[in-house]
């Protein structure tokens, strides 16, 4: 998070919506008039394969858009945990979807935050928004931008679907609340 630059990595199965929350972050950063880049990476499989994206939010012009050592990483499944835990920058934060990822050996020099986002999403009544719940958690614990601006981005990306915007906002807030209460 040196010199006003934050690097994110969001990883999981295809279908878990990690690319989407990266987009929300990026959109929000743009709305906040920050510099931003978003890069996706997919595995060769169509579904069930791995997917991840890197987001950089910065106050100054962004050189390298790739994120080798994220400040903040999110892993939604076990494979991503195994793959990325070592890359988090010392002092950084790793968010783990504990609904799916078992309790595995961690690291001492980073913060590991385990959140059962699938279960939380289930409670809200829509399993698909586990990703947004996690976005809320991240926002609560390691915010880079204002809450409002993230919600605005969420609404914008929902396009012309107000129910979706609503659902997403609820999931986002549920994440924030959960984090404030439990972590």
């Amino acid at each position, binding site marked *: 998070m040196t010199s006003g630059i934050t690097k994110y990595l969001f990883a999981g199965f295809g279908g878990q919506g990690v690319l989407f929350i990266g*987009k929300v972050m990026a*959109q929000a950063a*743009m709305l906040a008039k920050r510099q931003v*880049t*978003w*890069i996706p990476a997919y595995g*060769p499989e169509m579904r069930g394969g791995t997917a991840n994206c890197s987001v950089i939010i910065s106050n100054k012009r962004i*050189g*390298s858009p*790739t994120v080798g050592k994220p400040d903040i990483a999110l892993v939604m499944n076990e494979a991503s945990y195994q793959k990325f835990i070592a890359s988090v920058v010392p002092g950084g934060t790793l968010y783990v979807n504990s609904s799916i990822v078992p309790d595995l050996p961690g690291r001492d020099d980073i913060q590991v935050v385990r959140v059962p986002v699938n279960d939380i999403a289930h409670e809200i009544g829509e399993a698909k928004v586990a990703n947004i719940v996690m976005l809320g958690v991240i926002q609560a614990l390691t915010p880079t931008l204002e809450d409002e601006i993230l919600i605005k981005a969420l609404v914008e990306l929902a396009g012309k679907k107000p129910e979706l915007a609503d659902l997403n906002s609820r999931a986002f807030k549920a994440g924030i609340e959960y984090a404030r209460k439990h972590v």
Partner: protein
Amino acid sequence: MAMLMKGNEAIAEAAIQAGCRLFYGYPITPSTEIPEYMSKKMKSSGGTYLQAESEVAAINMVYGAGAVGERVMTGTSSPGFSLMQEGLSYLFAAEIPCVIVDVMRSGPGLGGLGPTQADYFQLTKGGGHGDYHGIVLAPASVQEMVDLTKEAFDIADYYRNLVIVAVDGILGQMMEPVEFPPYQGRKLSPKTWAASGAEGRPKNNVISYYLTPDLGESENLRWGQKISLMKESEQRFSEYLMDDAEFAFVAFGTSARITETAVDMLREEGIKVGLFRPVTLWPFPEKGLSARLPQIKGLMSVELSSGQMVEDVKLIVNGQAPVGLCKRQGGMTPEPEEVVDAFKKQLLGRGQG
């Protein structure tokens, strides 16, 4: 107003804004967003998107639309670009303006979907037969993809030459905020040469052969003059902290972005380095780089390939300074730290010694 857009989509939108009304293409990762965007937007822009049966067909459809004088584009990725090589050679010889996008993916062979710059030779030296060149533009941000794509059409028409926009898979897939200033094209002469139907004028032929070696030579010399003119007039580059630099990185596209960060890191250590970024890969910006040589103790090419552009760098440096290489291959990109390390190992010791 800025909007967040994928590089591939930005290219497609820029093309439409530049008056491109015909897109012929065949899907291939990681360039597929280009045809997808075109299939969505061309119709309402009064243009035509057509999915070709192959890249070979696509480039020849481009040839047809270009030959009748319309603005036309195709987009593909490395294996598809390889299939277009005969077509490119024909487009050059028939002097048909057009724009081709190559969103490079890692090879050789089927390879992988990761980013690469290993089509550099194919792009700049001519992967097809005979003496020819396309102008090759290498943007390094989504905004530059917009700006250069628009210009590409003007340059193509101006010289009656193919223009290639070359990016790696990262740039094609990356989202950045981007703006679309209103397009103001160059003033160009009407395409009186086009085979657009001989209404009210003598007939035109647009062909790519010559009947005798004498003619072949005079045609090639004429094309050679055009090549020289393009070489003279179209070199583009961009510099980062080069004014007082004692060492220069040379890099384009994504590797230039990564190198920019490496430059910052080295500058923090007090080492006077800068980045020379070719914006045209062909013509290689040799004037710009030559101008910097007197102040430079060493150069390093940073590439997503086994080291292809480094040959062009060496041709210009011509023994006047050591030229290093920092590379990653097969879809990998270097971390800025790696670039710093390679620099220290290969150049810093030597340059100072």
